[in-house]
């Protein structure tokens, strides 16, 4: 079967490292370690095995026809490239992940839209220097001046009648 022989792993580690959030950096380090292990295992053996010197053996080996037989079988031997059962799993994983990414992006965009709306609303409010006292009271009832219930000087909560708390409060 036509198998692609590769000689090197090319993974862009810097690009990956950019995209990984800080919390997952140890995972990336572990992944890189594994990947380097695979690379090392691959490089341990040469791409083609060395050639066998048949003439040397034909002169040496006394058994009749053994070397020729071996040579015939050796040359006829086609070693199968290992079957790739995992790429399909990876593809399935990737599809799942893409779906999740799409959902996340959608939710994220919804959040962005709500934030932008909030920003727009805040920017469209009347600036404080152009509000009247009535408008301010309508917008911030606790801080504006309420003409129906005016406060006593010095307008802090402790000085208003009916204030509960402070040193005169009854002990429980």
């Amino acid at each position: 079967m036509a198998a692609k022989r590769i000689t090197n792993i090319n993974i862009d580690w810097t690009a990956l490292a950019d995209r990984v959030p800080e919390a997952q950096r140890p995972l990336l380090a572990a992944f890189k370690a594994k990947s380097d292990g695979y690379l090392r295992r691959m490089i341990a053996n040469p791409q083609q095995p060395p050639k066998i010197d048949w003439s040397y053996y034909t002169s040496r080996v006394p058994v009749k026809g053994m070397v020729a037989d071996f040579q015939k079988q050796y040359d006829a031997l086609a070693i199968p490239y290992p079957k790739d059962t995992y790429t399909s799993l990876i593809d399935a994983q990737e599809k799942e992940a893409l779906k999740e990414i799409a959902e996340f992006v959608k939710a994220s965009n919804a959040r962005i839209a709500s934030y932008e709306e909030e920003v727009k609303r805040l920017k469209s409010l009347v600036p404080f220097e152009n509000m009247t006292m009535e408008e301010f009271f309508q917008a911030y009832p606790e801080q504006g001046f309420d003409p129906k219930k005016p406060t006593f000087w010095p307008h802090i909560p402790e000085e208003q009648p009916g204030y509960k708390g402070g040193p005169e409060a009854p002990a429980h």
Partner: protein
Amino acid sequence: MFSRVAFSSAVVQPCRQLLAVRCAATTSSSHAAAGSAVAESPERDLTNFPRPVRAELPGKVRMGFIPDEWFTFFYKKTGVTGPYTFGVGLMTYLFSKEIYVMEHEFFTGISLAIVVALLIKKVGPGIATFADKEIDKIESGFKESRESVVRVHEEAIASEKQEQWRAEGQTLLFQAKRENVAAQLEAAYRERLMTVYNEVKRRLDYQAERENIDRRIGQKHMVSWIVSNVLKSITPQQEKESLQKCITDLKSLAKA
């Protein structure tokens, strides 16, 4: 024309009007969230009657207390000197007809006016800048409440966008996984090749070595067998004869 209170801004250097808000507690953080826009009635005509904007500076005045509009009112008819001549004429009329009586308090008033004018010219600017700074503090406190929330939201938007970019980087991860799988397959294939080669070579080497060993042992055996046979074949008679021959040879050698 008489709506403006002529003495409202006696400060020569204009100082901004105070933001007259009576707040029980001026905590800036509480202003942020509750700022829903005041509901306008749909009949409100905002194009012809726009919302009034708070004036930052008081109206322009000439000579400290006379509004500028009273002067420009005259410009069309009389030119630039009109209002002053009108003023001088009015004053002359008032003084000469004794409508405005120059009694004791009048001269007190003149002295007071001079002193006050001097005081304002000297001290006014300093007080104006100080008061402006205080107003700035209050105003920025109000503004900050809204600005900080806007900033927080904008940061949130930026971080969301960055998270999106990060999430999209997962395709890189899958590429990396595929490369890893390919590398593992390649490694296994190479291992298989090497195994085959090594096994074949081992067997051939074994045969070759065996041949070598056979030859070597055969040679050694043959040599020892030949030597032992030769030794055996030397009969006692032959041995005596050869010894005699050796002795006579030695004698002849000794003689020579």
